[in-house]
């Protein structure tokens, strides 16, 4: 039996039996404060408002009365409006993870050994690949700005540009050149495969993608490659109850990490919930953008088990700009529920705009005191 069908039956069978309202007559509940506006209205009516005025006020009062007193907004799945939004998100997220993987492989053994180990290290290490992805997706209230334009590469018939913002408000532009292959339309359902190039900044990745119908469900798959042995793939099934993407990271033909990202709306704001499993470690991270005193930060709740130890708490992530070099980095403040606080710095800049990115691999010893890559400071 199909996943979707199972979930539908279970959900509807239970929900059909849940009472919409309880009999609260014996609960001793009191009318809400907003309801007291009623008496004010009748007083005003006494003072001779016309019928028309009364009707207007009645409507306004009704709006107050029927408005939920505490503006409740339960968590809901985020909805992509069109296929090209799904493809754009898949492209952005897989290349973001792939770019991170690529940069990690450039780390020398020396720099890895120089990392200060602490209990919070692994908490940060697992979340780090997802920072850029979250930054670029959560910064935009209305999703990506997507444009279909005429291809200027002979090998590819289609060109799509999409744009998002980072935490500093800087525009990040992605360009996809691709060919559609094996396109088919059956019963108004379109399926296709696509192959092409994705370019952002100075980076270029090959990709393949598809939209298929599996057991009546629309399934989008997308893979960004370094080569056949090194890639990140995503899979997204279109479901009403949740919007999630499954990621697989393969390095040297070995599956090294699996994760699931769920996108939802809470209090009218987008948030990303990441669940990962890597070896015996697993956990969840919940990402949200927050602005306090005009400073925007990425706020992350975490609950993970690493090296056999369970940890939970919060991480605040700030983007720090070096005023002299204009290089940027992430400052992560990890606050565990055991009241331990750690501060970390992590690289943020990519090759995309760096003029001197080729020098990055031997940079470690050249950095000034601000560059605390991989160092942790217990504050």
């Amino acid at each position, binding site marked *: *039996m199909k996943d979707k069908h199972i979930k539908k039956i279970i959900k509807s069978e239970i929900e059909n039996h849940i009472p919409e309202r309880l009999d609260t007559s014996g609960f001793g*509940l*009191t009318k809400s404060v907003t*309801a007291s506006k009623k008496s004010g209205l009748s007083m005003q009516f006494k003072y001779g408002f016309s019928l028309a005025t009364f009707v207007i006020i009645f409507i306004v009062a009704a709006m107050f009365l029927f408005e939920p007193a505490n503006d409740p907004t339960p968590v809901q799945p985020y909805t992509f409006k069109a296929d090209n939004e799904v493809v754009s998100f898949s492209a952005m997220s897989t290349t973001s993870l792939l770019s991170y993987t690529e940069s990690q492989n450039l780390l020398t053994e020396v720099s890895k050994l120089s990392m200060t180990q602490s209990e919070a290290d692994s908490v940060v290490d697992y979340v780090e690949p997802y920072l850029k992805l979250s930054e670029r997706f959560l910064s935009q209230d209305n999703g990506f700005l997507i444009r279909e334009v005429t291809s200027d590469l002979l090998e590819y018939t289609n060109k799509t540009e999409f744009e998002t913002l980072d935490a500093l408000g800087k525009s990040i532009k992605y360009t996809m050149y691709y060919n559609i292959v094996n396109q088919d339309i059956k019963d108004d359902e379109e399926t296709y495969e696509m192959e092409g190039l994705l370019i952002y900044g100075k980076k270029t990745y090959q990709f393949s993608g598809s939209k298929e119908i599996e057991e009546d469900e629309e399934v989008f798959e997308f893979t960004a490659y370094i080569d056949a042995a090194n890639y990140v793939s995503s899979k997204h099934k279109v479901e009403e109850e949740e919007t999630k993407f499954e990621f697989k990271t393969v390095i040297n033909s070995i599956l090294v990490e699996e994760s699931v990202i769920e996108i939802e709306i809470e209090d009218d704001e987008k948030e990303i919930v990441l669940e990962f499993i890597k070896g015996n470690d697993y956990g969840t991270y919940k990402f949200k953008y927050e602005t306090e005193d005009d400073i925007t930060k990425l706020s992350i709740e975490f609950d993970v088990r690493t090296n056999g130890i369970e940890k939970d708490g919060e991480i605040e992530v700030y983007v720090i700009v070096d005023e002299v070099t204009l290089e940027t980095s992430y400052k992560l403040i990890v606050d565990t529920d055991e009241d331990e606080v750690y501060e970390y710095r992590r690289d943020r800049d990519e090759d995309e705009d760096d003029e001197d990115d080729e020098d990055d691999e031997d940079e470690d010893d050249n950095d000034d005191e601000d560059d605390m890559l991989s160092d942790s400071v217990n504050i």
Partner: protein
Amino acid sequence: MVIKQKYIDKLRQRDEDTFEYIYDLTKKGVYIIIFNIVKDHEVTRDIMQDVYLKMLDSIGSYQTKTNFYNWLLMIAKNQAIDYYRREKKIVHIDETDFIEQFSSQEETPEEKDIFDRLLSVLSEDERQIVLLKIVDNLKHKDIAALLNMPLGTVLWMYQEALKKMKEVRE
């Protein structure tokens, strides 16, 4: 699920709108917890009435900074167990009984039959995890906290449960 303190404060004052709000947010979880123990829709609805009254009556003992939803679900679980004790029924029943007790007049025979068979292949813990995940849309980590299980166990059990249910024939 985290319920903001301001709503709990209003609930202490037995504010009607806040009660409705809390009820809408929590009714699925409460229903599932009770139903998974008593396995009867009618009884579950009766116990729900008691649970929410008990919630109001004992909200003074609710400790701020603990999870309100978990606290409420604990009341639901205790009320359901109390019911069983009163009725002198046993909590664990075999699969045949289970299928019969899930019956309801409001369901179409086909759907009811599939629903019964789907849940009957699951263990009690798997059933609870599946219902909380699918019906209440709780996160795995929230289910883990609620059931006092490691997150990995919940993730694994949920996947196993889905696999088992996929093998059930329509």
